[in-house]
């Protein structure tokens, strides 16, 4: 399985903060950069590749330039592909490709955001200027467009609010063991459904947390990996896709995960049945349900029954997911893709919280969704594997 692996994740670090009014965004980037490098056993001057997305409104228009300056990086390869929350899962694939082509050997990927501290009273603007004139005027922003996807899925497949609530309940079960999680209190299906309706059919507890935070990981070549004392995680495969309006024939029950997942699984030469642990982007419960279907963990339309009866609960569910509590309960620092990668790495290295560690996890996936299920979004899937040393 690891014969043709080009790249490995050698270090990962999640900032413990969920509220950082006293830190700048650049400072958060730097703190997690230092944490991930220390975790890998690498020094700053080993870094010759740098990836960060373009969300850093406090950093400036050209984030890789500003942050390379701030961090004092001397890099031969850099990229700031910004596809929203999926960007950091995309950076896994992009870093692996850059390493495979000899562009760099040690790629640092960082995220920082202050979604909680910074002013949230400003009207939300879609970052896609082209289309926003046909959307913003109707009040189409994040929450209601995901609700549209949930409505259509319920209409076509009979999915229920209780089934969506199972996803939050499982995430909250995991979050109770994470001392850094924003919401650690376990909630029941009944409590989720009884929470305030914010955009029907979605309830308040169908939505992710709003947090500050940061995270980083380091992707290295095989040559570098062999010099490290640290157990590394193999990047077995990666795939990306974009799902959009399709010239006005939008299908709200289909996500980009269908194509990104297939591409990643094909490259890794494994399938959904081989996956021991899944990090699934969880901006909303409906995001998880549709992603599970499109990644092939169940048939289309059967996500509702799949998640029932604790299937997603670690350590013994059919498919343990988001064992840090995920975006729904732990951390969603503007974008959730970074924490998806980090928890998958923890699982494969046996470093998740003991109560939710999947025994002998060999294969994990991290899936990011960037943009909006109800309009246009990117899907990015990374298949990761444990490496015996």
């Amino acid at each position, binding site marked *: 399985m690891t014969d043709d692996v080009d790249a490995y994740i050698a270090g990962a670090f999640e900032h413990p903060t969920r509220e950082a009014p006293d830190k700048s965004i650049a400072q958060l980037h730097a703190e997690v950069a230092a944490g991930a490098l220390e975790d890998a056993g690498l020094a700053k001057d080993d870094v010759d590749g740098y990836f960060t997305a373009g969300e850093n409104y406090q950093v400036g228009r050209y984030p890789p330039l500003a942050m390379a300056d701030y961090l004092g990086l001397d890099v031969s390869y850099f990229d700031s592909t910004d596809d929203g929350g999926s960007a950091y899962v995309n950076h896994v694939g992009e870093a692996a490709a850059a390493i495979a082509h000899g562009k760099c050997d040690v790629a640092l990927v960082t995220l920082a955001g202050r979604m909680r501290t910074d002013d949230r*009273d*400003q*009207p*939300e603007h879609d970052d896609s*200027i082209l*289309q926003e*004139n*046909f*959307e*913003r*005027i*109707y*009040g*189409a*922003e994040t*929450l*209601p*467009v995901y*609700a*549209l*996807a*949930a*409505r*259509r899925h319920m*209409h076509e497949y009979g999915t229920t609010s209780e089934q969506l609530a199972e996803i939050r309940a499982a995430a909250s079960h995991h979050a109770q063991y994470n001392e850094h999680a924003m919401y650690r209190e376990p909630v029941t299906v009944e409590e989720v459904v009884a929470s*305030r*309706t*914010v*955009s*029907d*059919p*979605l309830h308040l507890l169908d939505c992710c947390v709003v947090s500050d935070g940061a995270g980083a990981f380091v992707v290295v070549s095989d040559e570098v990996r062999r010099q490290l004392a640290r157990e590394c995680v193999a990047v077995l495969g990666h795939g990306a896709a974009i799902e959009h*309006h399709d*010239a*006005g*024939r*939008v299908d*709200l029950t289909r996500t980009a995960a269908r194509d990104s997942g297939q591409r990643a699984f094909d490259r890794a030469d494994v399938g959904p049945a081989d996956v021991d642990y899944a990090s699934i982007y969880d901006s909303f419960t409906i995001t998880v349900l549709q992603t599970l279907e499109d990644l092939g963990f169940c048939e289309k339309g059967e996500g509702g029954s799949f998640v029932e009866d604790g299937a997603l609960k670690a350590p013994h569910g059919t498919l343990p997911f988001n064992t840090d509590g995920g975006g729904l309960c732990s951390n969603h620092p503007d974008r959730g893709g970074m924490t998806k990668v980090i928890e998958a790495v923890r699982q494969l290295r046996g470093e998740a919280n003991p109560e939710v560690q999947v025994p002998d996890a060999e294969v994990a996936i991290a899936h990011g969704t960037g943009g909006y299920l*109800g*309009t246009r979004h990117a899907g990015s899937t990374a298949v990761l594997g444990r490496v015996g040393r």
Partner: protein
Amino acid sequence: MSWEPRPVPEISPETAPYWAAAAEGRLLLCECQDCDLQYYYPRARCPDCLSGNVEWIDAAGTGTVYAYTATEIVSGWPEEHLPLVLAYVELDEGPRMLTDVVDCGPDEVEVGSSVEVTFVDTDDPDVAIPVFELRR
């Protein structure tokens, strides 16, 4: 169920005819003269075959609700005008259009509800916004 006047969209040469027609009470679609696709939102080149041979056509202005939500939270939207019914309306010509269903209670809307276009004003008298209401 309304917010008037609506924000004025940014008008570009590519989309100006669409907004001007709306001010006259007409809903326009684009039709590719090469592959016959009728599409929304408006673009100068066909999103299916990339042909630039595209013409404006008048839509019938009728359709059915493909998906909807009554949302309680919209940034900047006056609270007294909430909930807002956001919907995808599948036009009779085929395209699904993100829009609002106005002048109805959220409990009156269903997937499959029959709707027809109407128009709400903006601060710019030459620009109106197409929305939909239930056909009763």
